[in-house]
């Protein structure tokens, strides 16, 4: 009797933990909106960049003066008017979505539980082993895939708390209207051209993150992981080993 009463309870508990969504609805929705907005920002950002593919440092810089970096893109490609329209529309979508995500992450245990690495895991040996396994294209086990490892946690924290705020601030630093109200968004980066240059490099860092992110999704099982980010549920035992 005692055994039969015990077993269903285990079964219920087991199914509960399987039923609890791997990603909350807010995380899933904001993830996909941000993904679409990022594509818009990337396309329009490239369109804006190729209008003047040179980077400078300080307040000013122009074609006939000295530059910091000349990107290997010809000037002939010229300027596309729609670039800034699309860039700003996508930027607003991404910023407002980011505000919802950040509020959710702070009000729920999401940041603390899912992103903050435990002290125990924050060791170079462990970090190096994870990166080494990933470089050798070693698939994570089902158990490992249930939670973020320390490298994932650090990468997500860097994107959410460093790269995203930095790309917004450097973007604002290029705005003459915003710089007239909050001069430090421009002077803090060393000038309008410095803000533009940093904006470019942060965008490159975000793009690299997206590449590695997609590669890791492929490694862990593309349709499975993408399905989890859409429905919130893991496919459980059907996961390839």
């Amino acid at each position, binding site marked *: 009797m005692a055994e039969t009463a015990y077993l269903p309870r285990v079964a219920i508990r087991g199914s509960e933990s399987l039923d609890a969504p791997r990603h909350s609805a807010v995380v899933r929705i904001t993830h996909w909106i941000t993904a679409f907005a990022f594509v818009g920002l990337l396309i329009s950002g490239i369109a804006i960049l190729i209008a*003047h593919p040179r980077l400078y440092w300080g307040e000013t810089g*122009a074609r006939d003066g000295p530059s910091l970096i000349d990107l290997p893109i010809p000037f002939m490609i010229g300027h596309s008017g729609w670039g800034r329209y699309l860039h700003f529309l996508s930027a607003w979508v991404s910023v407002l979505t980011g505000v919802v995500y950040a509020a959710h992450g702070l009000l729920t245990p999401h940041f603390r539980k899912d992103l903050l690495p435990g002290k125990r895991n924050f060791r170079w040996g462990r970090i190096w082993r994870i990166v080494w396994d990933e470089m050798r294209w070693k698939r994570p086990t089902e158990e490992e895939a249930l939670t973020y490892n320390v490298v994932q946690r650090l990468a997500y924290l860097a994107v959410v708390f460093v790269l995203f705020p930095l790309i917004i601030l450097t973007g604002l630093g*290029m*705005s003459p*209207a915003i710089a007239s*109200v909050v001069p430090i968004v421009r002077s803090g980066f060393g000038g309008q051209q410095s803000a533009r240059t940093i904006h470019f490099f942060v965008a490159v860092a975000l793009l690299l993150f997206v590449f590695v992110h997609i590669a890791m999704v492929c490694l862990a099982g593309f349709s499975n992981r993408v399905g989890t980010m859409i429905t919130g549920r893991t496919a459980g035992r059907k996961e390839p080993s």
Partner: protein
Amino acid sequence: MSERISRRKLITTGIAAAAGAGGLAVAARLADRYGLIPPDDGGIYGVGETVTYATQRLLTGRHAMAREYTRSDISRIAPVKGEPPENEIYQRLVAGGFADWRLKIDGLVARPSFFSLAELKRLPAERHIYHQACEEGWSFIAEWIGVPLSHVLNQVGVLQQAKYVVFYGFDTNFDAGDKHTIKGKWNSIDMADAWHPQTVLAYGMNGRDELPPGHGAPLRVRIPRQLGGKSTKYLAWINVTDTVKDIGQGWGAGGVERGFSWYAGI
């Protein structure tokens, strides 16, 4: 237990959605009333433009000042975009040293007027050294010498209904009878920028009492809180109006047709 939570969730979501929709409707009405909607507010891109313009206008108003630099900050090279107009009227004015040039100011003003270059130069002159960036990405610092637009507007007496100041240069067909057919680099600004103390009608640059040809001689406006493209060159006519819907495509600037947004405070 879980049913109760889901019902509570449903009710709160419903209330939040209703409040959100109601809030949006109120926001749209207020935005229109306080002039927070740009002329190029149509289509999907118009949504982004409206949010940008409204946010920046609420933050900047009339009192936020662009940084003023010192003489030693002035860029050695002041690049220009585009060539001076090649049409006959403009070339004739250039040949005559702009002695026959007159700036027409009319529209919603008490005293429509014409100003010669000499008359403008007799008005109190100001010198501003500020940063100017192009939409493309390059930038420079230069000194601009001229009379504040607000001074000239006070002379002609702006009427209360005024919402925009429209600038037409010699690179537009500003003298077209039908305003809908106007093309080229005409542009407009709202009254917050028109009255802004750093907005000047510049006739000189970098210590000299005249503008180099490519920089908009004989007169251009300088709007330091927006990208350089807003600072219309080769001015012929300034018109004060309450709507820009009847000019060109009705989007507030000729550049919008080519995909450049009207508000350029970015």
